[in-house]
């Protein structure tokens, strides 16, 4: 019996999971989007329990309710009960039961099949890696860091500046790095969150085997999702190595890459959006802020919901592709860019390729392009030149 099956009845459905610490808004992305209690964490846990008891049969709708959870962990932060740290694990375990029974919604099925067949959720072959990633140095033994790009940075054009500027910052920092090139495969974080444990394990083993073969000691990830699974799961698979998110490297080498702001971001206010897998999942709140605060010439302003209370962009748990939360003015990414614009910031800084894609799109939909630019941390720094 999986642990969630013996524990899930303990949710009282009190609703604290819907809020941030100050109750100023709804902070569960799926609940904010759909507003039926079924889409809150409490509703979801009660439905899972009902499904286990046979009181609610499986349906596409039930499964979609489960997969609209972005695993952002706002509920974990806010739930007053002792079992709070386990809540998202319970949802993932319930998804894994659905996966084992072959009862998953169509979009999730497509995502997982694509990862299984192509090694990424975008149905791209290694040959289709974006040109600017192909030109990057390959990792070889003795290189200081393996730069793990992740699927979005390898195949989504919207991340171009992020990749290019990150590489530039690493060069300026004077660190040596290399990529796996065509040998890089999906990190497995989203696959795990979607409940496909076996596939996630296979992906991890494949990547670890490559790390071993090349003697990798330290990995820099562009994506907080990759950072998360490498830090919290790969480490327990018999090949310990250092994992850093690129924001940590930017912060560590701020002096080397420091510059006075003279470029297009000069004088602008910057607000930073905490990615869930860097923030709530791994408690890295200050490091990314330090990475940009080290550069004089722009002002860092906070959105009302920040750090442990940050509002998820809606892209977690594969939703940057499956996009179950899209299609409304209440879609989380759209709410988030409106919140960012209200701070008066001209730049919304992010540290995750998923957030970058989701929020860039939302800025267009909300017609905020004249007021707000979405950039990753490395790009903010680069454009300050």
């Amino acid at each position, binding site marked *: 019996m999986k642990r969630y099956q*013996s524990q899930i*009845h*303990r*949710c*009282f*459905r*009190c*609703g*604290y999971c*819907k*809020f941030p610490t*100050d*109750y*100023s*808004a709804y902070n569960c992305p799926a609940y904010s989007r*759909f*507003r*039926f*209690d*079924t889409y809150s964490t409490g*509703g979801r846990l*009660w*439905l899972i*329990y*009902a499904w286990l008891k046979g*009181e*609610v*049969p499986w*349906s596409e*709708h*039930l499964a979609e*309710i489960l997969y609209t959870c972005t695993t952002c962990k706002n509920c974990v932060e806010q739930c*007053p*009960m*002792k*079992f709070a740290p386990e809540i998202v694990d319970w949802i993932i375990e319930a998804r894994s039961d659905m996966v084992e029974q072959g009862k998953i919604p169509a979009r999730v099925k497509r995502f997982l099949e694509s990862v299984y067949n192509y090694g990424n959720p975008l149905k791209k072959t290694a040959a289709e890696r974006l040109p600017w990633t192909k030109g990057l140095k390959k990792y070889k033994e003795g290189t200081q860091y393996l730069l793990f790009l992740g699927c979005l940075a390898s195949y989504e054009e919207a991340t171009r500046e992020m990749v290019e500027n990150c590489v530039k910052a690493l060069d300026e920092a004077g660190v040596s790095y290399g990529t796996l090139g065509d040998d890089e495969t999906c990190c497995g974080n989203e696959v795990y969150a979607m409940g496909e444990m076996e596939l996630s394990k296979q992906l991890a083993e494949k990547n670890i085997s490559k790390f071993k073969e090349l003697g990798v000691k330290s990995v820099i990830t562009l994506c907080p999702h990759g950072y998360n699974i490498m830090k919290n799961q790969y480490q327990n698979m018999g090949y310990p190595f250092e994992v850093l998110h690129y924001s940590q490297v930017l912060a560590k080498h701020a002096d080397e890459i420091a510059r006075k702001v003279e470029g297009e971001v000069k004088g602008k206010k910057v607000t930073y959006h905490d990615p869930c897998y860097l923030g709530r999942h791994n408690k890295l709140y200050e490091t990314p802020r330090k990475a940009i605060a080290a550069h004089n010439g722009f002002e860092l302003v906070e959105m009302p919901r920040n750090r442990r209370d940050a509002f998820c962009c809606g892209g977690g748990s594969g939703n940057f592709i499956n996009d179950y939360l899209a299609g*409304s003015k209440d879609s989380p990414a759209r709410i988030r860019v409106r919140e960012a614009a209200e701070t008066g910031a001209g730049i919304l800084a992010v540290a995750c390729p998923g957030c970058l894609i989701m929020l860039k799109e939302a800025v267009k939909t909300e017609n905020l392009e004249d007021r707000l630019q979405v950039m990753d941390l490395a790009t903010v720094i680069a454009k300050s030149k």
Partner: protein
Amino acid sequence: MIDIYNELTSIVDKDFVSNKPEELYIYGRDPGLMPAHEPEYVVMPSTVEEVQAIVRLANREKIAIVPKGGGLSLTGLVIPQKGGILLDMKKMDRIIEINEKGSYALIEGGTTHGALKSHLLKNYPHLRHSIPDSPPIATVVANAVIHGQGRLTQQRGFNSDMVCGLEVVLPTGEVCKIGTSAVSDYWFSKGAPLPDLSSLFFGWCGTTGIITKMAVKLYPCKKLRDVMLFLTDRAELVPDIMLKLGRTEMIEDLVVTAQPIPLRYAGNYYILFYITGDSEEELEYKRKYCWHTLWEYFEKRDGGFVSLVPEMKAPLLSMPSKDTTRFADVSKGGGFEYSGPIAPIEKYAVYVKKLEELAVKYNLYYSSAARMIDGGHSMMFSFSYTFNRADAQTMKRAKQALDEAAEYALDNGGVMWKPNLDEQKITIRKMDPNTLELMTRIKKLLDPNGIMNPGNWEVL
């Protein structure tokens, strides 16, 4: 045959109408012990016009409507006993106006206590409302509808007493203003100097209309707050201690707790009371005054103050208190319910004895919180028992204990607060027949088709 679903989606955005089993399941039950019964549709209106259109449809088709806020009464008051349309009001959540000089907030029917608290703290930190200890998703309207209590109840009465105006969609679909807003642009009184019609909507469990707007009174929010704890092992002294403290007119809130674990709690009654001030000097004066007020009990060795370190004070001072919710999982079962009579405070000792007796009889974990109301005119005494959702036997035993507690309370001067259907039946049985007849006439007059939350307050 008319397709109600399609009719509803012609009124409300289809994203906010559901007849799917998952929504019907969740909206057909609450965290308490009353049996589930599912609606046929769940709808989330955004405007008063949408509410009106839904009510007219329900009248035409003779189908039930149940308006719902946070759904946290625990006594099944929004379980749709006759199916029909469940109206989740939480999309109507605008804070329309804070009238600073008039000291009231005008809000929509689905505004949560959490949202109002947060709004005031951010924009009007010198003002506050009476926030209950239910979780922040509880709506201000639904809490007032059940005569809820909050952190200002000791000073100001029930939360329904702090209402100063309503906008209601009547069961026949008309929109009606209640209070001064019926004749003025201001919402400063729910009744006086006019006939007070507001009581047609409080305590009726949503059977007389749907409140779409409400004005609630705001009170000064002092800069400093502190909590004091007096402990006694003699339950019979508790009412006098409560009264003495209340009559100082210096305390904000007073709650007496009783629970068996941790072991040091067993057999003791914890009298928690709160004081406020705009300066440390004011606070210190109140501390000393309260200390002197209870000195006689200390001298007789009947009780004493407990020193609270900051770590202990923080959760007690938080509003709402998450500790109230945590009680649901003390036995790792995810459930608790309480029977909550409003009663004379002189009944404290006999109630607490019954609470403990029933816990032994039904082998349950218990807790009680007794809040003083309006300076001591009454108290809300909770007979609270936990249960395990995965164990039907504990659920059955908890329900039996609660039923017995309700019978006992009603036989001993209490009147049930937010009564479940079983408690409503007992209340009706004991009620003055002319009062019952008046209630029945009013209900029929307002709701000729009996569509509003049917099953509640019905003469069986």
